[in-house]
């Protein structure tokens, strides 16, 4: 337990507090990465934390990027058996690798795919027992592919996100999304990215090191925690910046230069 709470990312997210409640409940986390540095490892960490034996969180994983076997293998190395959690009804995997919303020019209902997906999510949550309904985490990997699936109509994707957002207030769900920042960096008004950033309570950015690639530092994380203003948490830093190194079975976090 102690060893886990020394993790800088957990600290920044407020996960190190020894409370029964899942610290991210009711919050929206947006993760942004780039081609050079993938941020998907943060998703894996969060899944692992959410499915930890002492918590009762239920994870709804909406996968657009990778098949189940990929996540299963990774999480197994992190010490978390997704297949078993699936049987326990704590992990729900939505394989949306091939989900393709109908063409916009077909005009019948371009969003039907995403509406159906939302319906599926809602149904799953309603199907949960009363106790675990309070601790649901929805993870979307990743939003840029949802846009592709919706054939570029990012407004529909935003609608979908807003709907998912309502779940955070209704059920105190956690919504975690991954997106790629560099896709939008060249556009003048990256409405989609700005909207998701606006929705987010916590923004995590994974960036490559400015000084180039290194074997012992894989990149840096910037965590912006907007919602830390209530009560005793005021003393915490709002923006944290630290380096990370991704390994097979863990991720090392450390402050720049503090590594020996």
């Amino acid at each position, binding site marked *: 337990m102690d060893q886990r709470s020394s993790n800088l990312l957990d600290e920044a997210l407020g996960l190190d507090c020894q409370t029964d409640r899942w610290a991210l409940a009711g919050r929206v986390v947006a993760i942004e990465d780039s*081609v050079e540095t993938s941020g998907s490892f943060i998703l894996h960490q969060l899944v692992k934390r959410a499915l930890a034996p002492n918590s009762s969180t239920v994870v709804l994983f909406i996968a657009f990027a990778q*098949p189940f076997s990929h996540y299963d*293998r990774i999480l197994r190395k992190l010490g978390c058996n997704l297949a078993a959690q699936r049987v326990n009804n704590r992990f729900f995997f939505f394989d949306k690798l091939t989900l393709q919303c109908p063409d916009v020019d077909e005009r019948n209902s371009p969003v039907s795919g995403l509406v159906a997906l939302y319906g599926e999510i809602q149904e799953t949550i309603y199907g949960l027992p009363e106790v675990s309904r309070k601790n649901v985490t929805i993870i979307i990997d990743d939003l840029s592919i949802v846009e592709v699936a919706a054939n570029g109509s990012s407004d529909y994707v935003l609608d979908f996100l807003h709907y998912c957002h309502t779940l955070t207030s209704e059920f105190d769900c956690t919504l975690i999304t991954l997106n790629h920042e560099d896709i939008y960096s*060249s*556009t003048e008004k990256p409405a989609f990215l700005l909207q998701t950033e606006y929705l987010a309570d916590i923004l995590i950015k994974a960036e490559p090191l400015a000084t180039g690639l290194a074997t012992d530092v894989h990149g840096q994380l910037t965590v912006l925690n907007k919602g830390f203003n209530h009560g005793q948490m005021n003393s915490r830093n709002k923006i944290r910046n630290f380096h990370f190194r991704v390994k*097979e079975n863990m991720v090392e976090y450390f402050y720049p230069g503090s590594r020996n």
Partner: protein
Amino acid sequence: MKKLELGFQWASSKPKLLLHRSSITTLRRYQLTAHGNCGKRKSAENWVRRSSRRNTNSSANSTRLNSELRSKQTCPKDYQTGVSLLFLLAAMAATKTRGSSFSRAVSAATPSLAPGLKCGPNGTVFLSSGIPDLDKILGGGFTLGSLVMVMEDSEAPHHMLLLRNFMSQGLIHNQPLLYASPSKDPKGFLGTLPSPASSKDDKPRDRDTDQEKGLRIAWQYKKYFGENNPNFTGHRDDKHEYCNDFDLRKPLERQFLIRQHVDCVSLQDSMNLSVLLDHCGTFLSQFPRNDNNSSITTAGRIAIQSFCAPDCGYSNMEWHMLSFIRSLKSVMRSSNAVAVLTFPPSLLSPSFCKRWQHMADTLLSVKAIPDEDRELAQLLTGYQDMVGLLNVHKIARINTQAPMILEATTFSIKLQKRRYLVLECLNQAPIDGSSGASYGTSGSCSASSKTGRLDF
């Protein structure tokens, strides 16, 4: 632009090993022939001369060696120790290069694989890219089920080099191939595929191992080979079946094209990408993947050239292309095949280009280098032999979260003897007027030369 002659019109010349390897071999061979017997020294010298004539590119090394030899001829004893020292140095250098070249540990419990496939970490299976050096860089090759994207240089056909070798390697291994290109007659491209270097051309390499076995003098250095040799020969044997050296000047024999199932699709015909996707789908249905680690009998290869070329009907439908790539990627994931897709990034808008890059599992880019760039020529060694640069942006991370960090991401593409495609780390040239020690220091400057070759 540096001229890239891919035809078969070059004058014939003998193949050559990697420069550093060849210089080491020269030393070794020299050592062997010079063994104890002064009478044999002459022949050794002749050998070196001959080889220097043959290897025009490495003639500098050999000539240096020659002069070394001439100066030592007066005192054979000194000369012998000198050579032994050199030899020791070479052996040590060899150890170093071997040690730094990346080779994955292969788990013992492996499913039975068809030839041309290799087990990788995390339950992945590799397939050769057709370029031995690229396989080494990527840690074994292309992962089955992955989508490899190559960003083209819009003004040079370097991506064709990668595609040709990739396709040829598949045909050699009896792997079905689907080739799509924007040209009117994609079948014609098959005629330009390179053939693997024949065993006769490979002789220099083979002889090299033979002589190592019969090492008589300097037996005390054998221990250096003890750690090297298994790795070395094992790798070589492996290479013979897993990855061939392709002779770019020799066209692939017809029998490979005939006995194979080669599908050619012209991207010009298909206004709609769904047709192409269906085609890929039916092609890939031959290689379904079942996760319970049963044997893989065959793997498929898909090569798509210049996907967003303007002469394709769909080239202005950016979202359609993107969803095609996404669908292709998802069908790839569930089949035992590798798709290589090249595209000119300059034809895409920057944000779409990034989207494409995110789609790729393995992302490479090729770039031509200017013909007469004097500044660059001064900066890099072996500039004359380079035809372009290869950049590794992303390496497939299937079933793992840990990224593979390379020592260097930029490699020079060289055509060795104008026949063999070779990738090398960039090496900074020694600065004019500085002492010989600068060879050593140049390595640390470029921070990429650990796997680089050895300059004498």
